[in-house]
């Protein structure tokens, strides 16, 4: 058959049969038991490119994307402005269609991009080292927790309140059959004040999200110091690393491991994936890290170059004793993040961070003027905040959608449910005009 994905012609196939010494292709498959071959048929028609585009466009047009609405949905996935150059540069075929750079001489460009990515993540988080990416934030957290258990040989993992529920669920699934015990802490005053009496000698690590799921700033040097004094590791989870542009980096405050979700660095929302997990650590943990690491070295002429390194940690060499099973990672997403950060630079990234902060605080002040609306918490927040709207009208989300708004994340889906709760995120894309209109519609809808 002639098909664009199948370059061989029938004539070429015939010549190849002759070289191999077969009459028919079936001869190469005769090792497969005939009973299996007989049941292998399935009914699946083929579409040409035009028909395929039409079909997928129909599916796409059945959706109402957040990107076309005035959206205040965040809760772990954050829409930001993405420079056009990110897509153009990242989807060049040399990056897009290469694989893991097992042959370093042939893929110095990709290796250098990973080295630059590692450097940028390490600098932003204030850490010594970062790996070349993880699948996403939640799996990066789970791997960091496993690392902490193996490193400390302790069994208890304390999780601060306010961890993204996606991350919490993934952490539960990853640790269910290990010897680690997860303990989810309830919000109390003693959590934020030393001497961290919630810790004991079995505590392997403490997981703290900052800003937390509700946007609140909870991370302090005192807290991390108190954890260290008890011999436990601190793992800081960052769900929007744009916050690192203006907040003191967790590494500088004393965190042992900083992990998180870097989708905000130039990756589209794309219904939840592919995203980009990052994992950064103090150098003590270097040989315990999961995933690929790129290092700088020299060639036989003394010229600088880059290679995958410390591979004896990895599954293809260490097998069941590897630090992780990860093989494919999020390479292209890491390249996108590297391009994003190069374009934004320190000034641009801080502008983005401050714009989200200014917008969220403006929106907060306007919405809390509505009589039935109350703030859930009173801690300082970054670009997201939780409101108690009281009893929501039954068709609240539909009504707001009809008026052009995704009003935020419905906290009645949160566990435990906060009924009437709404979590709102304001990106730098929101304007004062949009927010004023939103407030007017909210007041109308809630009255």
């Amino acid at each position, binding site marked *: 058959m002639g098909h664009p994905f199948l370059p061989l012609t029938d004539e070429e196939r015939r010549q190849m049969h002759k070289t191999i010494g077969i009459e028919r292709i079936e001869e190469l498959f005769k090792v497969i038991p005939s009973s299996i071959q007989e049941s292998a048929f399935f009914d699946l028609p*083929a579409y040409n490119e035009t028909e395929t585009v039409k079909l997928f466009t129909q599916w796409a047009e059945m959706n109402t994307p957040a990107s076309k609405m005035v959206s205040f949905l965040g809760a772990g996935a954050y829409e930001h402005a993405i420079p056009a150059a990110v897509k153009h540069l990242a989807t060049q075929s040399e990056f897009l*269609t290469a694989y893991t750079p097992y042959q370093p001489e042939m893929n110095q460009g990709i290796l250098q991009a990973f080295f630059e990515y590692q450097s940028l993540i390490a600098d932003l988080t204030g850490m010594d080292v970062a790996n070349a990416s993880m699948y996403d934030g939640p799996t990066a957290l789970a791997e960091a927790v496993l690392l902490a258990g193996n490193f400390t040989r302790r069994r208890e993992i304390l999780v601060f309140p306010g961890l993204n529920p996606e991350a919490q669920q993934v952490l539960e699934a990853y640790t269910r059959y290990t010897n680690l015990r997860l303990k989810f802490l309830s919000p109390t005053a003693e959590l934020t004040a030393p001497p961290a009496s919630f810790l004991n000698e079995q505590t392997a690590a403490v997981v703290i999200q900052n800003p937390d799921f509700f946007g609140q700033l909870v991370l302090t040097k005192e807290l991390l110091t108190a954890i260290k004094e008890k011999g436990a590791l601190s793992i800081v989870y960052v769900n929007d690393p744009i916050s690192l542009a203006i907040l003191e980096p967790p590494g500088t405050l004393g965190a042992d491991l900083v992990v998180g979700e870097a989708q905000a660095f130039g990756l589209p929302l794309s219904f939840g994936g592919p995203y980009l997990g990052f994992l950064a650590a103090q150098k003590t943990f270097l040989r315990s890290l999961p995933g690929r690491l790129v290092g700088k070295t020299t060639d036989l002429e003394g010229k600088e170059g880059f290679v995958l390194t410390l591979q004896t940690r990895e599954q293809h060499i260490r097998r069941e004793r590897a630090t992780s099973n990860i093989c494919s990672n999020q390479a292209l997403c890491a390249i996108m993040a590297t391009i994003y950060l190069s374009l934004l630079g320190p000034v641009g990234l801080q502008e983005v961070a401050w714009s989200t902060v200014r917008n969220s605080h403006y929106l907060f002040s306007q919405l809390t003027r509505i009589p039935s609306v109350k703030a859930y918490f009173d801690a300082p927040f970054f670009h997201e905040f939780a409101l108690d709207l009281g009893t929501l009208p039954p068709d609240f989300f539909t009504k707001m959608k009809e008026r052009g708004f995704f009003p935020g994340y419905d906290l009645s889906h949160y566990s435990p449910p906060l009924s009437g709760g709404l979590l709102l995120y304001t990106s730098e894309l929101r304007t004062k005009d949009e927010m004023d209109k939103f407030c007017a519609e909210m007041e109308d809808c809630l009255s």
Partner: protein
Amino acid sequence: MKRKERPTLLKEASTPGRRGYLPPVSDVPPVPAGELIPQSFLRQTALALPELSEMEVTRHFNSLAQRSFGVDQGFYPLGSCTMKYNPKVLEELSQLPGFQGLHPLQEETTVQGALALLHYAEEVFSTITGMDEFTLQPAAGAHGELTGLLIIKAALLEQGETDRDTILIPDSAHGTNPASAALVGFKVQTVPTSPAGIIEPETLKPYLNSNVAGLMLTNPNTLGLFEEKILTITKMIHDIGGQVYCDGANLNAILGWARPGDMGFDLIHLNLHKTFATPHGGGGPGAGPVGVKKHLAKYLPIPRVVSTPEGWHWQYDLPHSIGKIKGYWGHFGVIIKALAYILQLGYAGLKQVSSDAVLAANYLQTLLKEVYHLPYDTPCMHEFVLSGLRDEQSKINTLDLAKGLIDFGVHPPTIYFPLIVPEAMMIEPTEAVTLELLNSFVTIMKELARLAKEEPEALKTAPRTTPVRRLNEAQAARHPILKW
């Protein structure tokens, strides 16, 4: 490849004051920063990021691209990775605003097209593999293995089978198999490959006992050979109460010819970036959907997408589920591409994919075994493994040959894997080849054999045409420099 100097690192190229992008700036009434966020939380340490114009960033990444090599640049017979051609339309489809602009937590009514697509993709994967149900959550092949093993563990614990703590894995398996088993707390028992390159029931028998939770098997295996005794093997494992897991990395050999579900496998992961042409992206993102037979469906990750007369929904209320193994619903953007690839081929096209992939591999094997040692001399499936040069006196090893290939503009095959073959070169041409390309590869490989005999130094010092020569990997590991 031109031997130009390495592009300056972004940090070294930085010039204070340059801007690469102007983001939208908040237009709300100004408030002093300290009133928004308390000073104690704010950054005291300087923010070290490079400062570059868009033009400089563009030239930087273009020059990195020029020092990289993908499937679009040339032949990439990297065994076990299925480096097939990635059709251009796939990228465009995944970038449609109605897909790319979707927030994962939107109300179900606003994402019906996305849910319909995911549901259909699950059905198509089930059909192709002969499984009953699929999850699209796993991010990559190894992540699929982890998911499958969590499912096996959950099923065992529910049946009170706490003694079943061992997973059997052939010595030819991918390293991810034992690493994934260990992550779930299983012990790993290695089963030896027979002299014929496959698992023989007689060899397997001594490993079977009441502690066995299951067997992980790649079929065709990493030697490129179909496990001919598969029906006996899966029955043996089932008879002792175990599950059989299929590492689907090599599915490109059997599309339309055989279905793992019909072979008796209970679980399988797919590698969409291998079999279904989604770009490898320099090492990811991939996607590793997992399919199971009915008896394991209740353990699949939450949420499941379900179809009802009113539309598609997320179903969370599944008490037996292993929970979530990834944020949100998996690599949606990758799943779109894989489905679009499959639908452009249909059943006949998919079967032709495997026919051509197997034909191309056998063609190369036939011609290369004249000069290279072929340890398992039998028709192969979609890939085959050579064991160095036939000339046993040669000082040229597989690494030298691989580096020699680079100078001819070919990406080397997978080398030194599988571990059971000395000096292994694992060659997978895929179906995306022309006869001319295959012949030119054979010519190059024969030329390398000639060089090995007549000018071994030329290979010992290869590559010479690349931006850097052979790199000192020992130095990199001994004195790690992992950031600027």
